[in-house]
């Protein structure tokens, strides 16, 4: 007869889970969605989490606590090798694959595993992502990376590999992609041992040079939605080489919202307005006014309250498609969780959006939307969206 762990008093099953080591807790978290959420609710943190990218796999290292504090060496470290398939090879420090076959999840790809581990240990990001000299771009192109404040390269990495990685991970994926799967730092600082051409790193991206070239360059990147990113590329040989075995090639600035305050963000206010107009390979223009527009966001949820929010947008582009419409929210409160989004109030927004990964049609508050995140329906008083990501 099983022990109905989840029927125990909350305090007791939380204590029971707290008594488990990381390996057992991971196995438990994989039992069901509910058990995953329970594991998350323990708020267990590892002392150190890091990821290293090899030829065709990512090794995720979970280190439970400092060596000085370690109670049981065998349970202090878990190394997990992930690739793009469902193959997972966890092993302990001694190299024995003790966890092999325990966490079988055939439907999980390496990306799913990575997301799962970060999620249950409440990591908002991999603190350090290290690229080894064995890393191949073909693998980077197939593995979706989580956000990381520090990207490091092994000393033996070639300039070509560094350029490709920085270009892909920081500029393209972390910033320029507009599907909201990747985080958006406000700035990226590159401290390089050797001069690398900014043109090559920012290849295919529209930018302007704000400063340089004496100590390096400061670039400003601008997205179609007017959001900006500053990228500073500096030679850091004297500063970096004396301090670190492996130099940092890319580090998001600590002051950026995404890094410094990973848990919370509140913005907006009373009487908000903004507008923009741009003609490039199309037209990008928008204007917006609200008496009150306040949003609060953390890693689990986001909330937004808007009163008398009116706006208009007119975007045509041969690459991005069409997005035109009028926002008319008399009052609107929206809540977005991990798997759904719900909004209520009174909205008569009207518009049409046909973009490569997103379709949205609404007329006087009635409509639907479909994109990579999920599917949603709207009426003037209520809107619901179910997310499958």
């Amino acid at each position, binding site marked *: 007869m099983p*022990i109905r762990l989840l029927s125990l008093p909350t305090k007791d099953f939380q204590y029971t889970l707290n*008594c*488990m080591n990381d390996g057992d807790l991971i196995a438990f978290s994989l039992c*069901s*969605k509910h058990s995953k959420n329970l594991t998350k609710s323990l708020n267990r943190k590892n002392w150190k989490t890091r990821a290293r990218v090899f030829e065709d796999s990512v090794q995720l290292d979970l280190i439970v606590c400092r060596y000085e504090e370690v109670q049981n060496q065998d349970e202090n470290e878990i190394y997990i090798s992930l690739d793009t398939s469902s193959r997972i090879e966890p092993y302990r420090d001694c190299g024995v694959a003790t966890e092999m076959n325990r966490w079988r999840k055939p439907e999980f790809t390496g990306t*799913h595993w990575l997301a799962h581990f970060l999620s249950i240990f409440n990591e908002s990001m991999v603190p350090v992502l290290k690229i080894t000299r064995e890393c191949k771009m073909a693998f980077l192109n197939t593995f979706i990376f989580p*956000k990381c404040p520090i990207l490091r390269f092994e000393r033996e990495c070639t300039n070509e590999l560094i350029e490709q990685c920085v270009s892909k991970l920081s500029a393209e994926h972390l910033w320029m992609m507009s599907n909201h799967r990747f*985080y958006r730092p406000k700035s990226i600082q590159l401290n390089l041992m050797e001069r690398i051409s900014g043109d090559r790193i920012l290849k295919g991206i529209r930018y302007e040079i704000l400063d340089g070239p004496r100590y390096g360059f400061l670039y400003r990147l601008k997205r179609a939605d007017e959001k900006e990113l500053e990228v500073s590329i500096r030679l850091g040989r004297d500063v970096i080489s004396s301090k670190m075995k492996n130099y940092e090639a890319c580090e998001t600035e600590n002051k950026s919202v995404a890094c410094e305050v990973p848990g919370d963000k509140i913005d907006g206010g009373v009487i908000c307005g903004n507008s923009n107009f741009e003609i490039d390979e199309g037209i990008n223009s928008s204007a917006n006014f609200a008496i009150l527009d306040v949003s609060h966001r953390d890693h689990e949820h986001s909330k937004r309250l808007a009163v008398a929010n009116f706006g208009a947008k007119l975007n045509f582009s041969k690459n991005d498609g069409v997005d035109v419409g009028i926002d008319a929210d008399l009052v609107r409160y929206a809540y977005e969780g991990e798997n759904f989004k719900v909004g209520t109030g009174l909205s008569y927004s009207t518009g049409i959006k046909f973009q490569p990964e997103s379709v949205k049609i609404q007329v006087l508050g009635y409509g639907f939307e479909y994109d990579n995140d999920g599917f949603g329906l709207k009426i003037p008083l209520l809107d619901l969206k179910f997310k499958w990501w």
Partner: protein
Amino acid sequence: MAPKKNSAKRPQPSTPKPSAPARIVKVQSSDGHILQADVRALLLSSTLAATIKGYDDENKPLEKLEVNNVVGFTLKLVLEWCEKHKEDDPAIAQAEKDKKNIFIPSWDRHFLTKLPMGNLFDLITAAYHLDITGLINYGCKTVANSAKGKSTEEMRELFGIPEPWEQPSTSTATWDD
């Protein structure tokens, strides 16, 4: 650096209590079973200790305690555990409360691990209702130990988790913009 060995030790009782003459009372379970127990054993339960204190304060004779949410079989196990630990310093259990690495003495380990999982569940639940910190500590730790090294499938079976995993997700809500 050489790793330190597991240094989790059970706190030692501060001073042995002088043995007092046993004061036996009757305890009635929710299904009507009547058992007998030493009051010192019952004092390990904060819930029963409060009731006993109430009788003592009013100088009322304590003949029978009713435990309405624990059945006879489980109550017998609870009283057996309490009887074994009636000389314990309550500070021991309090000191171990919520600690991850606690040492389970051999008698308790034997007592708890021999129980079928269903009975262990009832025992922990009873300990929760009666607020017996030491029994909760050891019971929960025993459950955690029973999961040691188990696979996901084995754990699902052990803990009676029927819900299969649904759609795999890469969403950690941390990757979003």
